[in-house]
């Protein structure tokens, strides 16, 4: 039973929330409403994908919110060269931050939570130094990235969906993906089996940094302003929640990509439901806490077995 909850509980919960909303929330079935929910959840989905990889190695990446802010800052700084250049620079920034975290973890041997906590503080600081206050912009390409649609589906949602497929492929079908899971499952055994453990670890954090930076650019494009001071605050917690609620254990050795996306959707729907019914935000937080505990409880069962 707990096994079923672990594997399909998040799908059931999303379904239950959808049914509730269809019945009790006015205008919920509007296409525009689904667009809103998907657009809002997309940056979290993108970050959660990287987080799932990192957690699969038994690590954690607390720096993702700050990397978003760094990407926002770099976007504002380089927008003069055009949106494409700004995007590339922002992604490079994210990759460098990820490489720094990965190196600290893999080569220096610092615990992931400590290494990325240092980055959480440092990278946010760097972003604030680069762009001390909110900057608005009018670059039409960048605004289009945040607001245009293809066949009625917002570009941001298409990007998030495509990345989900890419990461799922990476996990299931590539040497790299198998190695990530093996390292999380048993690092000593992976080392003895000749796996390039350190390289894989660094790469995982680089991917997480890249995805966080992309999410930062997309959120910035959507806001039509670069706001490194508050962009991505506490988003690492949302991403970790999505991964855990999706049934990926924090103890590593297992990655559930589709369920992670569902976990993010569940949290988005939950918060939307409470907002639409005009309940205070503190309620959202309390319900979230209950769901996280439930998720951790059912994944714990697996570890015990």
């Amino acid at each position, binding site marked *: 039973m707990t096994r079923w909850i672990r594997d399909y509980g998040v799908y059931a919960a999303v379904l239950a929330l959808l049914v509730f909303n269809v019945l009790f929330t006015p205008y919920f079935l509007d296409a525009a409403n689904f667009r809103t929910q998907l657009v809002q959840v997309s940056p979290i989905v993108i970050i959660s994908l990287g987080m799932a990889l990192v957690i699969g190695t038994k690590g954690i990446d607390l720096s993702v919110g700050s990397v978003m802010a760094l990407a926002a800052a770099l976007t504002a700084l380089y927008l003069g060269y055009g949106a494409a250049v700004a995007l590339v620079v922002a992604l490079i920034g994210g990759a460098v931050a990820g490489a720094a975290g990965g190196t600290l973890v893999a080569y220096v041997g610092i615990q992931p939570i400590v290494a990325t906590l240092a980055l959480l503080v440092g990278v946010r600081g760097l972003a604030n130094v680069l762009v001390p206050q909110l900057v608005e912009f009018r670059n039409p390409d960048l605004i289009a990235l945040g607001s245009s649609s293809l066949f009625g589906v917002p570009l941001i949602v298409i990007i998030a969906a495509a990345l989900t497929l890419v990461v799922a492929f990476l996990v299931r*079908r*590539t*040497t*790299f993906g*198998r*190695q990530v*899971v*093996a390292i999380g*499952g*048993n690092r*000593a*055994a*992976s*080392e*003895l*089996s*000749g*796996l*390039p453990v350190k390289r894989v670890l660094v790469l995982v954090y680089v991917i997480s940094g890249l995805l966080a930076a992309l999410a930062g650019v997309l959120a910035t494009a959507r806001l039509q302003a670069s706001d490194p001071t508050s962009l991505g605050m506490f988003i690492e917690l949302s991403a970790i929640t999505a991964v855990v609620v999706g049934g990926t254990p924090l103890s590593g*050795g*297992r990655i559930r990509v589709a369920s992670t996306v569902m976990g993010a959707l569940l949290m988005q729907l939950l918060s939307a439901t409470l907002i639409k019914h005009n309940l205070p935000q503190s309620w959202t937080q309390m319900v979230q806490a209950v769901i996280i505990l439930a998720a951790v409880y059912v994944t714990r069962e697996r570890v015990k077995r």
Partner: protein
Amino acid sequence: MKRTEPLLEARGITKRFPGVVALDDVHLALGAGEVHALVGENGAGKSTLIKVFTGVYQPDGGELRYNGAPAGFASPLEAQRAGISTIYQEVNLVPMMSVARNLLLGREPRGRLGVIDTARLYGHARAVLRGFGLDTDVRRPLRSLGVGAQQMVALARAVSVDAKVVIMDEPTSSLEPREVETLFGVIGRLRESGIAVIYVSHRLDELYRVCDNVTVLRDGRVAHTGPLADLNRLKLISLMLGRDLAEVKSGGLTRFNRDQGAVDGTPVVEARGLTRRHVLSDVTVSVRPGEVVGLGGLLGAGRTETAKAIVGALPLDGGQVLVAGAPLPRGGTKAAISAGVSMLPEDRKAEGIIPGLSVRDNIALAALPSLARAGVVSDSRIDRVVEIFMRRLRIKASSPHQVVSELSGGNQQKVLLARWLAVRPKVLLLDEPTRGIDVGAKAEVQALIDELAGEGLGVLLISSDLEELVEGADRILVLREGAVVGELSGENVTEAKIMAAIAERAHD
């Protein structure tokens, strides 16, 4: 205290863990001023017995007596308060605090207002440590000292808390020869002042130098107890290994069935002068194609370390590994594996299986790069390889997709063998390949080793099972304290000769 009654006594102690009886009716008597050796191979029950003495475990049966009265220690703290001190292999002090604070932690001299009187603290610490041959600045943090010196601080601390019994678990494993001498001096003084010592070590020379009596544990039972002087080394080793000298069989109990003729050809792997401080000294091993080379020796003699050094999983201070004549680059096991040298580790759980992954993924793990194109794995190729090995090794699993942790120990071991065979090695280093698996699986694994060697694979076999070693190996190197002390081949490959080589007095 009555003279007839021992200071600390175990009477028929039994301790069970789920699935195993760790201690079975164990008797041990320790008198004041006695130095008592406690010996036994892996899993014999030494550490469990120590933990019963120190209050970590509560016995399931039998009686613990201390100072002539029944005693039960509910916690390590209680045992310590009663006067039983323990020094572990790993120093467990506070590395950031000063040497003096560590030495007197919890008993610091205090001045008015309860403030620590640092002048007295340092003075007292200096005096205590001088008695242990340690002349160091006691204000420095403990971690700035060498491991040996830290060990001495731990010892000084244990002894200086008014201990009546001191338990030393491999106290010399990280000490320099000079420090070992100091330790023996300290033990002598303890004996004179009526303190009892339980001394756990695998170094026979040390045992014979400092111990009065010995208790040999094997499979949770007492195999022998009595004065050490009554036992010669050979007898002691045969007791530890469970091989009676008189009835050493001439073979046939294992599935090894090869004509142990001479194997010709140049070595496929050759390790020269492997050296690492406190672990290995100048170990040279070579394995030829089709040859099974055994590594004999007691626990802690450096067998596992030798194998790890060969595959690059143990950093070295000196030495070189050649594969087919070419030196292997150091740093990581990848180079060794791609050169054709793989190691099956002793600890299946910690270093072998990836518990959450399927049988299939576990088998394919090391061979993944060769089963993928441009980083994308080929499911059909993996399935083929997995199928071949599951059939050949007769791995019993409901399907290749069953999670490996659900398999029996024997089948897990076969999965690991399959993992290594899938990379088509030239040499396999097998560390205790049959430990902890059932009889049937054991025979299958032994037959497989035979078969693989017959096909030209070089094998380095590490086993504490002397019979397995003798019947499986063409040639045996005996290790003691990290050095090769004997090489046996041809007719000399017998259990008696191995034990004799282990027993041989060092430096004779």
